[in-house]
């Protein structure tokens, strides 16, 4: 009845971050020796992992397209282009029309100048909202709305890279990235899709978003510390954000073989869940996810931990108990935390490591900053399987 599941391979990786762009710039991202690239001054007292300087034209050739996007969308469209090129998916419309797409998205940049103007004018006495209406009507650029709409990251990927097989945008911080990868993997395994572009983008260099996380009291303003060392940090919040674009091309083994595509790794399982966040409930849920994903056999864990003390402590303890043989690395160490993008970026790093022969079986974990947990399992592909 239900057809046997197909193997799902990672055949393309597109990464753009503080470390640079492309696969080579990120191969050593999990090495503990490397130092992160940080910007502690632009958004002081907060530190961010700033995006590397990018020549957008390399993946977004038309200036007109670039003008329609703010940085968040450009990061995503650029990383998507890198992934498609890396997977050698031909650029002709006929091929790209058969590529499915799932994007995990937040929202786009606000016009902070216009917002400041609205705030200033609203201080005048007796305003019922008319001043805000007048200011927004006259000052907002019409196209800014489209640069802000969550699903327009995917919309711009369709326009720039001609990916039109399907287009779905998931929202909701870390959980969106977990679900995007889970649904993409499940659709391919079940024969509902033959090739899927899945990914996300996050722009950390935005005061509108820093405001949100400061309202929640999550942002770290003290000196930088490695992610897992922030657990014992005397109450200093642990979140250090980073600008990251991460896209993967997934396809079934038959499809990859037929077009001569090489694989980084096999994505065998993606699991997600959510629930109460007290330590006992989180520990139980995360343990179940790690066990379901085959934790005991893993020799590498790429964690998407936020560095927020309580959840990161639970995650460390669960991994020590359930994946005891694994080397533990935090994706956020070099990339920063990237919310919607974190799980997919961590999965990309794990696939890169497996392809380089570093390890045989990897787990990817993400415990969301407020909600949602996800675990992915990857295996190295053997030499007979057209490994990278």
């Amino acid at each position: 009845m239900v057809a046997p599941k197909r193997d799902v391979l990672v055949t393309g990786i597109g990464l753009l971050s503080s470390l640079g762009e492309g696969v080579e710039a990120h191969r050593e991202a999990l090495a503990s020796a490397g130092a992160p690239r940080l910007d502690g001054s632009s958004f002081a007292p907060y530190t961010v992992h700033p995006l590397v300087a990018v020549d957008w034209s390399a993946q977004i050739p038309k200036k007109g397209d670039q003008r329609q996007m703010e940085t968040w969308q450009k990061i995503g469209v650029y990383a998507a282009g890198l992934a498609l090129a890396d997977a050698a998916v031909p650029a002709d419309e006929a091929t790209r029309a058969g590529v499915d797409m799932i994007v995990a998205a937040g929202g786009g940049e606000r016009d902070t100048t216009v917002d400041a103007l609205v705030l200033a004018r609203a201080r005048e006495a007796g305003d019922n909202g008319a001043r805000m209406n007048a200011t927004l009507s006259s000052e907002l650029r019409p196209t800014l709305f489209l640069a802000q709409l969550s699903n327009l990251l995917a919309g711009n990927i369709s326009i720039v890279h001609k990916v039109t097989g399907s287009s779905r945008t998931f929202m909701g911080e870390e959980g969106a990235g977990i679900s995007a990868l889970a649904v993409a993997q499940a659709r391919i395994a079940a024969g509902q899709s033959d090739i899927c572009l899945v990914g996300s983008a996050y722009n950390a260099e935005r005061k509108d978003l820093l405001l949100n996380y400061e309202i929640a009291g999550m942002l770290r303003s003290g000196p930088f510390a490695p992610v897992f060392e922030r657990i014992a940090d005397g109450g200093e919040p642990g979140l250090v954000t980073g600008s990251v674009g991460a896209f993967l091309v997934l396809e079934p083994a038959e499809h990859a073989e037929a077009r001569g595509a090489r694989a980084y790794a096999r994505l065998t399982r993606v699991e997600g869940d959510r629930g109460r966040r007290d330590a006992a409930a989180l520990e139980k849920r995360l343990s179940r996810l790690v066990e379901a994903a085959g934790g005991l056999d893993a020799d590498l864990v790429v964690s998407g931990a936020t560095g927020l003390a309580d959840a990161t402590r639970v995650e460390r303890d669960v991994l020590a108990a359930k994946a005891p043989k694994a080397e533990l690395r935090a994706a956020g160490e070099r990339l920063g935390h990237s919310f919607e993008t974190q799980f997919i970026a961590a999965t990309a790093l794990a696939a890169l490591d497996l392809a380089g022969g570093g390890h045989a079986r990897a787990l990817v974990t993400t415990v969301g900053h407020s909600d949602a947990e996800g675990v992915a399992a990857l295996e190295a592909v053997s030499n007979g399987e057209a490994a990278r």
Partner: protein
Amino acid sequence: MSQASDLDFAGRPLVAVTGVGVVSSLGQGVEANWDALTAGRSGIHRINRFATDELRTTIAGTVDFIDVGPHVSTNLSFAMAEAAATEAIGMAGLPRDDFAGPLFLAAPPVELEWTSRFELDKLPGDAREEAGYDRLIELARQNRSDEVYEITRFSRIAEKLSDRLGTRGLPVTLSTACASGASAIQLGLEAIRRGDAERALVMGTDGSVTAEALIRFSLLSALSTQNEVPEKASKPFSKDRDGFVMAEGSGALVLESLASARARGATVLAIVAGVGEKADDFHRTRSKPDGSPIIATIRAGLADAGLSPQDIGYINAHGTSTPENDKMEAQGLAAVFGEALARVPISSNKSMIGHTLTAAGAIEAVFSVLTIQRGVLPPTINYNNPDPAIPLDTVPNTARKAEVNAVLSNSFGFGGQNVSLVIGRDPRA
């Protein structure tokens, strides 16, 4: 064990609709909405939730009868979603706090809202005087608030629904603009076909009519400015249509494998026979001039259902009342249906409830289910000045009785999002 009759033409599990729920500007619940819809009543009215001075559009289909205190989009979106979901789950005969299946929720993108920014700006604390984000951040450091923070989280509505209704796993919150509700149904359908779930709660909700949202759509010239008689502003397929009318609402459906529905003796309201999707790569707000993505979407929906155009008895149009959409939708349908299109009634619920944006695809799917179940086609109201360029049987102004075996329901959105659902009668009925 499932039987052959529980499978579709391609050997996949048939997916039944066993419960529906709806909230719109016409009222709360299936009966209130169906009564108004088949009576040709409009829910569009003048906005009184916030000041409309200086706005080009001052009308909308807001939902004002659910009290959520001071308006916050997330809170209203949740309240409507909870009402619609609870109705759907109750109708399906399932426990209201232990749904035990996944949740796919179409919800509007959220941000900190202006009320919160204004309140932040007034908070006490040691901060620079100059208005702007630097000041707000400095004040936030001294006035942290989980409650305000929750407003900014995209996944919050789904989390609260999941806790309240007992859905399982990590809920999916999605946006494909004005196709979102249909995309939620598509994701649930696929999960059940894969065998990943026996049932799924699929829904859309949108309570995001704010001054800024109206301004943003106005700046794109998307909204009707026919403010004088609010209930007459939304006039899909009319010659003098000039834009859509923003509206709020929620639609929810319980999807279930037919085998599972049969095993527990549930009433099958309809089946989701198929879904088609095709993205447009032409422009951020406009369709490809040749209509090829819309055409491909409709064809894919029919193919997925194993049906041909002559099997479709009624089309629930996207029908936004914008000059562009209605023309492109009619052209796309004509390309697929040919001359037979003249014989297929097509109406737009948006003529009465306005454009409920993120929720539209789910609400209109609920109405499509009711159309099949109750044998009545809701009308396209305000159809007094037909656009001669798109001759259609729009079920003008008055509801019509008709036995329908299959409905095509279209949803098209900004960003090139196109989804067509095919909803059919229970094959055993």
